[in-house]
């Protein structure tokens, strides 16, 4: 690969690419810290959860279950189901992390979140991106998450609710990254099917299994359509 392996360049590229995630994590992390503090967790305990779990929605759910007096096992099981969607993201990233040794892969796995996945998977298509930069991006996001949740744990809601539209930083990032993933008509169809199914499933079933269900269904339909299109083409179908 012709990408620079210079440590400073790698660090700079990874850190600067992470800014939309850091911006988006700030209000969510602060809000989480404030909530966790209100349920009786110390800043140290909050930081430990962010370090060991590093998963926003699961942490919110865990804290609300804790304050409701739930036991450890139901909280852990809920965390598991909420975070199962990372199976799909990890599988998809594996294609771009060939020949990496188990140690680096294990470190990489720690940093897989919705946000880092979305950014890195788009970046991996560029010549200038590699696993080192992706790893730096993951850990920059990780530090931003831990720091903002701990600061929130000291009772600091420094960013007034809704200021500067900061709550929309992550949705905007996801929308742009979705657009960048669309590389042909079939991708549009898969996106529309996934979005439609996700809305329907999310209205029918509680929890967030709708993400996995809609993604698996839409990607499977995509594969069948691609092969069906190919067959039609091979059998002399209209151009």
């Amino acid at each position, binding site marked *: 690969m012709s990408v620079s392996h210079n440590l400073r360049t790698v660090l700079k590229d990874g850190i600067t690419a992470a800014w939309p995630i850091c911006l988006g994590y700030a209000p969510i992390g602060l809000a989480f810290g404030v909530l966790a503090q209100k349920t009786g967790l110390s800043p140290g305990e909050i930081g430990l959860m962010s370090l060991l779990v590093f998963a926003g929605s699961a942490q919110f759910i865990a804290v609300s279950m804790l304050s409701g007096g739930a036991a450890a096992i139901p909280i852990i099981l809920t965390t598991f189901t909420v975070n199962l969607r990372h199976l799909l993201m990890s599988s998809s990233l594996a294609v771009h992390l060939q020949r990496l040794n188990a140690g680096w892969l294990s470190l990489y796995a720690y940093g897989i979140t919705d946000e880092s*996945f979305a950014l890195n998977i788009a970046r991996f298509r560029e010549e200038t991106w590699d696993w080192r930069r992706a790893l730096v991006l993951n850990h920059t996001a990780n530090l931003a998450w831990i720091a903002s949740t701990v600061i929130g744990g000291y009772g600091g809601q420094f960013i007034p609710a809704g200021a500067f539209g900061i709550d929309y930083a992550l949705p905007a990032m996801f929308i*742009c990254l979705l657009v960048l993933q669309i590389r042909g008509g079939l991708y549009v169809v898969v996106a529309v099917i996934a979005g439609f199914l996700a809305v329907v499933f999310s209205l029918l079933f509680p929890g967030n299994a709708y993400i996995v269900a809609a993604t698996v269904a839409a990607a499977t339909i995509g594969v069948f359509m691609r092969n069906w299109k190919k067959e039609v083409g091979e059998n002399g179908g209209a151009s």
Partner: protein
Amino acid sequence: MKADYLLLVLGMGIVTYLPRWVPLILLSRRQLPEWLKQWLDFVPVAVLSALILPAVVTTGDSRHLDVFQPALLVSIPVFIFAWKTRSLAGTVIVGMALFWIAGKFFH
């Protein structure tokens, strides 16, 4: 720090880490069949769409459909902007600005 809490976050950490780790270890060092490669190629677009759409058209703890919310109204021009410019930085800044302005009208 109580031992109970330490065990809780350790358990949460393990069950979160495993789904992130297993596919990476299993899939990254072998030749994948063509159908699986095609399938994985559709995962990003599908999962992003499945994350975004319910978040902008549903609300509430027991989710219900609500299409009259600033997040959806803002998402339409933001989508068009992203489509035209393909700029991540621009999309995030324009999105935040529009959402901020929209918030002023939705009180």
